[in-house]
């Protein structure tokens, strides 16, 4: 079952005519002509759709928190900053089928009573911005944007805003600061954007995929959507797959398939590249805890792990992880976990906005320690020091980037401590090009 990507490979789908031929903008017509904004919100609530940007917060509930004071404009801002390592689904969707997002934007803006909406796209994706702008122009030309859309009396202007190269601008309040032309420093919360957001007006920020899914929900009803998936993980999810699988790429999966099927079935990743074995997976983007092969395929209780919010987090951080943004990074036995952790540590060091001291200083510190260990200059006590530094950052910062920096380091040591120790004890071996520690008796040892 595909909701977002059913027609994504149809030639010309990026143009409004082809998009419409395949059912595009029918949700827009339905919503504006036959539904009230609250009815749209109600359907989204019923759908159980959860935010696809990482946190998984129910979209309908977020919408219902939006403050609606008289005479104050409200805004919908689409978060297309996509910068979480391992995640490239929004890029894929916007590049191939811009109208899928735009239709969702119009439907969602209508539901929220926003008359101006913005799509904040990371600046590196300037070519995608041009694709979106072209598609938006088509909508204006066809009367689907602008004043009195389809004679409904509803007005909407939609603009694309480029970022400038900063992962932190994916954090919703940093994004709003950035959209206001400032440094991407996250705000202290409360107040939340639903009360004071863009230019201090009530604002909803949602991920590309969350917004895109609303059109299907309007067309088919929230209950239909909720029938897909398992439990509170309803609907479909775009998973970005990178690393050592036979077929990396973006897949739309019904939530609830097993992780094993997802990795090994030909329909999805097609298995680990020939001659190699699965060692570890980062299942939801660089921020979430890495899991070794056995724990990603089955939970600690021995059940098959599913691609759902609940199943992936089964076991907490001790033996579980998170669905996050769906950035699924697969590693085979040739992967050095220390090196991979270093690139993540370096990433968060590089991307910390620098406002609050635990994250500003702690990310730099962890990066330097990891760098030493990777380069054969580590000490035994550095491993516990890393764990402690991570612990001192976690939970003590302004925004979740601090947590996101701490988790991958803590998890790598939790599940692959032997590999860190090997680096410390045998620097001469560990610094050989391509050298990788082999755990004796592990399922991935060749």
């Amino acid at each position, binding site marked *: 079952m595909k909701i977002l990507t059913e027609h994504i490979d149809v030639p010309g789908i990026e143009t409004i005519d082809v998009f419409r031929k395949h059912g595009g903008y029918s949700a827009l017509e339905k919503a504006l002509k036959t539904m009230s904004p609250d009815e749209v919100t109600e359907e989204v609530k019923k759908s159980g759709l959860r935010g696809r940007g990482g946190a998984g917060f129910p979209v309908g509930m977020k919408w219902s928190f939006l403050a609606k004071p008289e005479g104050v*404009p409200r805004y919908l801002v689409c978060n297309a900053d996509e910068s979480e390592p391992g995640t490239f689904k929004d890029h894929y969707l916007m590049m191939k089928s811009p109208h899928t997002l735009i239709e969702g934007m119009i439907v969602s803006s209508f539901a929220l009573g926003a008359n101006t909406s913005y799509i904040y796209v990371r600046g590196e994706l300037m070519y995608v911005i041009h694709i979106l702008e072209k598609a938006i122009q088509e909508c204006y030309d066809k009367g689907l944007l602008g004043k009195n859309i389809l004679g409904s009396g509803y007005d909407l202007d939609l603009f694309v*805003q480029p970022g400038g190269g*900063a992962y932190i601008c994916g954090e919703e309040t940093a994004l709003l600061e950035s959209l206001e032309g400032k440094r991407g420093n996250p705000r202290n919360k409360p107040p939340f954007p639903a009360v004071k957001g863009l230019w201090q007006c009530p604002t909803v920020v949602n991920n590309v995929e969350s917004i895109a899914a609303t059109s299907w929900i309007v067309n088919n009803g929230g209950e239909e959507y909720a029938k897909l998936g398992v439990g509170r993980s309803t609907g479909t999810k775009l998973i970005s797959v990178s690393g050592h699988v036979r077929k990396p790429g973006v897949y739309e999966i019904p939530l609830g398939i097993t992780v094993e099927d997802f990795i090994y079935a030909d329909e999805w990743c097609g298995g680990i590249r020939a001659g190699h074995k699965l060692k570890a997976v980062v299942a939801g983007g660089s921020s979430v805890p890495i899991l070794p092969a056995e724990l990603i395929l089955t939970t600690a209780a021995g059940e098959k792990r599913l691609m759902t919010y609940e199943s992936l987090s089964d076991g907490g951080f001790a033996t579980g992880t998170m669905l996050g943004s769906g950035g699924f990074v697969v590693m085979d036995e040739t992967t050095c976990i220390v090196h991979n952790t270093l690139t993540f540590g370096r990433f968060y060091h590089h991307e910390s906005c620098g406002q609050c001291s635990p994250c500003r200083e702690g990310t730099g510190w962890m990066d330097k320690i990891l760098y030493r260990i990777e380069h054969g200059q580590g000490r035994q006590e550095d491993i516990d020091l890393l764990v402690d530094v991570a612990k001192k950052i976690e939970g003590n910062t302004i925004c979740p980037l601090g947590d996101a920096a701490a988790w991958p380091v803590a998890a790598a040591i939790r599940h692959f401590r032997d590999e860190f120790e090997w680096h410390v004890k045998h620097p001469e071996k560990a610094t050989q090009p391509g050298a990788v520690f082999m755990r004796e008796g592990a399922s991935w040892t060749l």
Partner: protein
Amino acid sequence: MTNTQTIQFPADTLELVHKIINRYPEGKQKSALLPVLHLAQAEWRWCSPEVMDYVASLLNIKPIEVYEVATFYTMFHLEPVGEHVIEYCRTGPCCLMGGVEVYDHLKKKLGIETGETTADGKFTIKEVECLAACGWGPVFQIREKYYMNLTTEKVDEIIDELSK
């Protein structure tokens, strides 16, 4: 004050700047800063203090507001760069896809290290973080164009083509 007389967008870009400013409510023209900085960099290749002062004057904000923003975001070049700035992704997933080897090859081919510009001023290499193309890695970006699924051979082709 720096001399901004010689720095001026062509008429059509200026028109675009005004269109961009109109995307925001009255008095919120500072929101146009990132888009206008991108335009400025496309025009002058890098964001010199003079260029930033010019941008400040266009948006009617203080120069310091432009400096703090331009230095925050990694896409803005604060030093002169070559004609083609190659920004390669160094993050984990791209490394898994063979990035390290490909980027080493790139540096060897151009004879420069990350952060440097070739003597003829043609190429600058920069290291960036994840470009949201991980499954299509290794990746680099030159201006607006993404080059994906890179191999050493592909790198040779791209560089040879751009060197012409």
